[in-house]
């Protein structure tokens, strides 16, 4: 029995590498990919970098952290989206639909309103995201006897609009000169404020959560079966589902805390990945993560180069994501999953 080919994962990895080279090469201060590699290599080995100090500063202080953040957020959202889709047995759910993003957004807006630091904002974002997904999930299981998926989506819409009202209230109460612009800009999604020091509170939860999802990815296939079928195959579905919801919510909340609301990545990228490597989560999840990192990196590169001012990420992902999703829908027609 031949194992599936490595073409899909290799393609995703190549796209990510090209994205990184492109991201260094364009912008107000272009850096040749070779120079960027030299700086990073010198940093790793501790040796001297044979490049001008300005280049080193751009790579290490400005563009490097931003590129790393784009990759982290993109892969986290795509991996979480793929995991949520398997968990809820529905290729249409995403972190956005289940309220993780809006819950995290409300938590983070609350954090800004309370003038908390980055860690405080991130903790509130995580708590908000987890509470929102737990509420949606509880409503879905309590009411969704006949059509669980429909009830789940409806519960997500209801809880999401409630959270939206909460965000609106926070904006209404916020200081209009200081906090409100910060909230608004942040809610639209942006990586422009990313500095090297902000990477750690993003890196740790994303690596932990995505790592756990990647470790459990082979079990996700079974978990996407009806619950009794999964149990009869020997899976302790309750505990596993909780672990996956927690991990996916953790990475979503960390992403929202760092970059604001970046929609669409969690929904569209897993579909692209499925197109490349099929529905098995063993290959789907890593390829989703790679593609998600590449996609958000390219979109963030566009965001900072398209116009004299930065374009919000959320606007661009929606502009790219909507037509892409429609194309995927049309292409694969009935059995597009």
């Amino acid at each position, binding site marked *: *029995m031949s*194992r599936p080919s490595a073409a899909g994962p290799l393609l995703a990895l190549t796209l990510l590498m090209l994205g990184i080279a492109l991201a260094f090469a364009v912008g107000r201060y272009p850096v040749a990919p070779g120079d960027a590699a030299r700086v990073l290599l010198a940093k790793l080995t501790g040796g001297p970098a044979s490049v001008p100090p300005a280049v080193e500063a751009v790579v290490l202080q400005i563009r490097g952290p931003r590129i790393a953040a784009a990759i982290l957020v993109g892969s986290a959202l795509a991996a979480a989206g793929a995991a949520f*889709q*398997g968990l809820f*047995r*529905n*290729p249409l759910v995403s972190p956005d639909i289940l309220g993780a993003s809006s819950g995290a957004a409300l938590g983070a807006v609350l954090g800004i309103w309370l003038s908390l630091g980055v860690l405080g904002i991130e903790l509130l974002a995580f708590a908000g995201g987890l509470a929102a997904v737990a509420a949606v999930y509880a409503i879905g299981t309590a009411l969704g006897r006949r059509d669980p998926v429909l009830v789940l989506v409806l519960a997500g819409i209801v809880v999401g609009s409630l959270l939206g009202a909460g965000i609106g209230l926070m904006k209404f109460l916020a200081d209009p000169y200081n906090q409100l612009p910060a909230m608004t800009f942040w809610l639209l999604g942006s990586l422009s404020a990313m500095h090297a020091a902000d990477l750690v509170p993003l890196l740790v939860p994303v690596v932990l959560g995505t790592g756990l999802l990647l*470790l*459990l990815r*082979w*079990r996700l*296939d*079974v978990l*996407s*079966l*009806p619950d*009794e*079928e999964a*149990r*009869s*195959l*020997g*899976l*302790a*579905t309750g505990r596993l589902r909780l672990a996956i919801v927690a991990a996916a919510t953790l990475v979503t909340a960390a992403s929202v805390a760092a970059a604001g609301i970046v929609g669409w990545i969690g929904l569209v990228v897993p579909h692209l990945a499925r197109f490349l490597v*099929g*529905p*098995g989560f*063993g290959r789907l999840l890593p390829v989703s993560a790679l593609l998600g990192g590449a996609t958000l990196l390219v979109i963030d590169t566009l965001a900072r180069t398209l116009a004299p001012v930065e374009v919000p990420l959320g606007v661009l992902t929606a502009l790219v994501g909507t037509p892409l999703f429609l194309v995927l829908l049309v292409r694969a027609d009935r*059995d597009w*999953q």
Partner: protein
Amino acid sequence: MTLLTATGLAFGYRGRAIGRGLDLAVAGGEVLALLGPNGGGKTTLLRTLLGLLPPLAGTVAVAGHPLERLSARERARLVAAVPQAAGGAFAFTALAVVLMGRTSRSGLFAAPSRGDHRAAAAALDRLGIGHLAARPVNRISGGERQLVLIARALVQEPRLIVLDEPTASLDFGNQGLVMREITRLRDAGLGVVFTTHDPNQAARYADRALLLRAGRTLAQGPVGEVLDPARLGALYGAPVIEVRGDGARAFLPA
């Protein structure tokens, strides 16, 4: 040797018993057919025998282990289920579906090993559907899908296989295909329990039959003794006639 034993079993949901006072035993290399009208409790009994539903009273034991005391993983190594349809939102390949049967025999974080792939390929070949390995399960026929699910049950390496209406919604040819496979499982020494709407399947492919009506055992025993027009008439509440020919017999609604 007795493989599956249920004694004094009451089954159903908390506060709503569906059946009670049930005793049954299935040995390795034996096929038991569960017969009964709709709503008689067949599916609920099956779920209880699989350990998916805790018994309200009495015990279910497989190879001497009471199911309630086993983890899902330990249970899956003893009993495999073949559900009615391959439910699921994603179009996995037949091979991927069969590999899922290895869940209880691999670690929580483990990728399918070379041995798992070999076992899955062997199971598909054994059922004569090796050529379907790379096909998505929503692109093959209902009978082939049922065989894929049987292959998945086989790679669990269970002692007992439980099938819920294995031929429901299958055409005539596919029904024979699936039922002959059940005979082969028995010949390989596995215990088999299946539910069916068709007394003729029980007569032809099962060793023993249990007639379940309104949650109670109407009769139980070797198919040659238990299945007759009088009992089947009582079971389904409608007259049944028997026809014989070529050394086989069949029942028809009168």
